[in-house]
C-alpha cells in the first residue's frame, strides 16, 4: 500500500514473546495487527466500537477492547490474548467450564468472553450472580441468551474454590 505510509516498525510483547511488526501503517488497531500481522486471530472483530467485547485482550493486566487500541501505542506493554491463557495448548479452567456447561454455540463471542471471565475471576474468585452479569455486560453474545455462560462462570469459580 504505497499510497499510505507503511514504514512503521515496532515490537510488541504478546503472550510473553517479543514480536516484530514491520511495514505497518500507524492507523492499524491492535486487533488488526494481532489478527493480520501476528497470526493471532483469537481476538474477533464484530463492532469496531468497543461495544461487543469480541476483541477483548489484556494490556498490562487491564481488560481492553483491542479494536479501540492503536497497536503502536501498546509498545512496551504486556499483551495477553486468548491464545496465551492456557499453558502449552491445554484448556484453562474457564475454557473447560464453558465446554461443560454448553456455553458455546457459534463461538464468535467466546474468545472475548473467555478473556473477560479470566479477568473477572482473577480479581473476584467468588462473584455473585449480579457481579458476573455486570462484569460480562460488555460482551455481547447473540446465540446463547447468556444462561449457559453465566452457569460456566459459576462452575469455574466453584472449581477454583474447591481446589
Amino acid at each position, binding site marked *: 500500500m504505497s499510497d499510505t505510509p507503511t514504514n512503521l516498525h515496532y515490537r510488541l510483547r504478546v503472550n510473553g514473546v517479543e514480536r516484530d511488526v514491520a511495514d505497518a501503517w500507524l492507523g492499524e488497531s491492535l486487533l488488526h495487527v494481532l489478527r493480520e500481522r501476528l497470526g493471532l*486471530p*483469537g481476538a*474477533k472483530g464484530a463492532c469496531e466500537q468497543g461495544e461487543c467485547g469480541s476483541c477483548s485482550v489484556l494490556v498490562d493486566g487491564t481488560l481492553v477492547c483491542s479494536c479501540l487500541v492503536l497497536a503502536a501505542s501498546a509498545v512496551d506493554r504486556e499483551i495477553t490474548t486468548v491464545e496465551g491463557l492456557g499453558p502449552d495448548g491445554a*484448556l484453562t479452567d474457564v475454557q473447560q467450564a464453558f465446554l461443560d456447561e*454448553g456455553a458455546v454455540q457459534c*463461538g464468535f463471542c467466546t474468545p472475548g468472553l473467555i478473556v473477560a471471565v479470566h479477568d473477572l475471576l482473577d480479581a473476584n474468585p467468588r462473584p455473585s450472580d449480579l457481579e458476573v452479569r*455486570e462484569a460480562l455486560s460488555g460482551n455481547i453474545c*447473540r*446465540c446463547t441468551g*447468556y444462561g449457559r455462560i453465566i452457569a460456566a462462570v459459576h462452575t469455574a469459580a466453584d472449581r477454583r474454590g474447591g481446589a
Partner: protein
Amino acid sequence: MTTVDTSARTGLRPGVIGTNAARPDGPPKVQGTFVFSNDLHADGMLWGATLRSPHPRARIVSIDVTGAWQIAGVETVITADDVPGAPTYGLISQDQPVFAREVVRYRGEPVAAVAADHPETCRRALAAIVVTYEVLDPLTDAEVAIAGGHEPIHPDGNVIRHQRIVHGDPAATGAVVVEGTYEIGMQDQAFLGLEAALALPDPGGAGVELYVATQWLHEDRKQIAHCLGLPEDKVRLVLSGTGGAFGGREDISLQVHTCMLSLRTGRPVKMAYGREESFYGHVHRHPATVWMRHHATAEGRLVKIEARFVMDGGAYASTSSAVLINAVTHTQGPYACPNAVVDGYAVRTNNPPCGAMRGFGVVQACFAHEGQMDKLAAACGLDPVAIRLRNAMRTGDLLITGQPVDSVAPVERCIRETAALPMPTEPVGGFDGDVLRLPGGTGRTADARHVRRGVGWGVAIKNLMYSEGFDDYATARCRLADGVATLEFATAEVGQGFVTLAPQIARTVLGVDDVLLEPMSTRIGSAGSTSASRQTWMSGGAVDAACRKVRERLFEHVAADWGVDPLRLVVEGTDIVDSMAVERRVAVAEASAGVVFDETVEYRHRPTEDLDENGQGHCHVAFAFVAHRAVVDVDVELGLVKVVQIATAQDVGVALNPLSVLGQVEGGIAQGLGLAVMEELVITDGRIRNASFTDYLLPTTLDVPEVVV
C-alpha cells in the same frame, strides 16, 4: 438458574442420542483457534470492498472509476457492466441486481467494488469513485405501495404478494368483539461473525472456490454460478466458520462480488464487512402492521378472526412472499378458530430489503394474536391464562387454511407447565434497591417506589421446515470402515450444533464411538437451508437414514457369516447381537474390520401444497408449540422496563441433546426479548439511523433475565 437437569440421562453410552454430547468444535472455539470466515487468509491475497448507494432511490447518471484505478495498490474495479452472467439474483424471484444499473432502490445498494492490497487502500479507492445520481422520490410507505399511490419502483411492481384467507363462515360474528392494530419494528439478526468470504480462482478463470459463512451452500452456488455465467460444477463452495446466522445469511451478500473480484484479478480475494456495512448488506426482519379483530362467545370461545397484515419487504423480494404466507397462516396462533377472513400484503418499498429472520413471519403474527388474547380475556372477564386454555388447539383441530394439525399439539400442557413454574424470588424493584436491578439500570433514574410488577403471556405455534410445495430435502453420506464412521453433509453449521447431533445419531444407529466429519461443502448433494427449524429433522433424518442403510449392509455381512437372517440382528451398545440367540454377538469394530460400507441418502419430508386463492391448502409440514410467561418490572412514571424472569415450556419432541436444546431455548428467548423491549432498526426516509452496536441495542447479561425452563 433453571429447573432443568442438564446432566446426561443416566445409563446411556456417552455420546449417543439423549446425552449432552460435547461439541466437536468446542475446544478450538474456546481457545480462539477455530477458523471463522473472517479469519481466512491466503498467500497473495487481495482485499475487496463495496461501494454502496447513499440514496434510497436515484437514477445513476454516470459512474467514473478512473480515480480509483489511479491509486497504487488497486488491482481491479468492477460495476454492473462487468457481471459476466445473469445481472440479478434472488432466493425466490431473481429481482436483485449484483450491482445497481441505471437505478438504485435502497440506500446501501451495491454500485461498484474494488480489490486492493490493504483494506485502507480499498477505502480510499471507493472514495475516489465518482457516481453522479439524479435523486428520485423514494417510496417508503407500505400503504402507499398497496394503494398504488406511487409509480412502480421495480419492473416487478410494488406489491410482492397478496394472499387472502377465507375460512368457514366469513359472516360469522361473536358476542364479544375486540380489535387492535399492532406494529412490529425492523429487527436485525446481528450475528456476531460479520459477513466474510475468501475466493480462490481456478487457473485461467475456469472456475472458482469460495470459502464462505452461509446458511445454504447449494442455493448460494446456484445463484453465484448463474451470475458468473459458469456451470455450477465450476463453482465450489466450502463452509467456513460461521458466527451465527438467524436468517441473515440466507440471501446472497458478498458472494458474487468476491468471486468476480477474484476471477478478474486471478488472485485470492477476501471480502469482510464491518458492522455498519453488515446492517446494509443483509436483509432484516420485516416491519409489519397487523390489524386483528377477534369475535368470541360470551364465554370467550373464538368464533372468527379478521386480520390484515402489511409487511414491508423493502427494495427486493428476497423471501418476502414466504414470510407473508407464514404470517397469515399463523393468524389464529395456537388456538382453535372455525372462521377467518385474512388479507396479507408483502410490498416493495425503497426501504432496506427484508427477508428471513428467526421466526420468519410467525413472530409478527404472534405479537398481534397474543395482544388480542389479552384484550379478549379482559373483555370476557377472564384471566389471561384461562382464555388461552379455553381456546387451546388440540391435535386434529383445523388451521384457518383448512389443514388439520395432525401432529402432537400440547398447547394446554405447555401453558399449564409454564404456569406451574416458580415465580421469581426477587422482590419488586430488585434486592436492596440495587440500581442494576431497576428498570433502566444504572444509566437511568427509575425510582424503586414507582416500580410495579406485571405478568404477561405469550403462547405460540410455529411451522417447521419449508412450506407450499417446496421440494425440501437433505443429503447425507455415511461411510463405515474398521469401526469408524465418517459422515458427510453440506449442512451449514452456524452455531446450532448439528456437528454435535450428527455423530450422536451415528453412534446410536451404528454402535460406533468414533465418528469423523468431512468438511461441509458442495462436494456432496444439498442439505437444504439451515433455517425454518429444519436441520435436526431434515439433515438429522438424512444422517439417520444413511447410517441405517450402512447398518443394513453390515447386518447382511455379519448374518452371512453366522448363517442367519439379517433381520434378526440388532445393535446393542457397540455390539451386533442376534436377537434370537443373544449370546451370539460381535463388536461393530470387529465386524466392520477390513470392509467398507458407503451409502448416500436423500431424505424428504412429506409433500405440501400451495394455498388456493382463498388461502386454503395443506401448506405446512409440521408444527411446534411454546408457552412463555414473562415477569416484568415497570417504572410506571418513566416507562422503563426490566424483565425479571421468563418461564417457558416448549414442545421440542425428543431432546437429542438436552443441553443443546436448553441453549436454543435460552438463546431464542433473548432474541425475542430484544425485539420486544430493545431492538429496532430506525428507518427515516429509507435511511437506517442506527447502523451500529452503539445505537442498535442488543440484550446484554444485564438485560436477559433468569430463564426457567
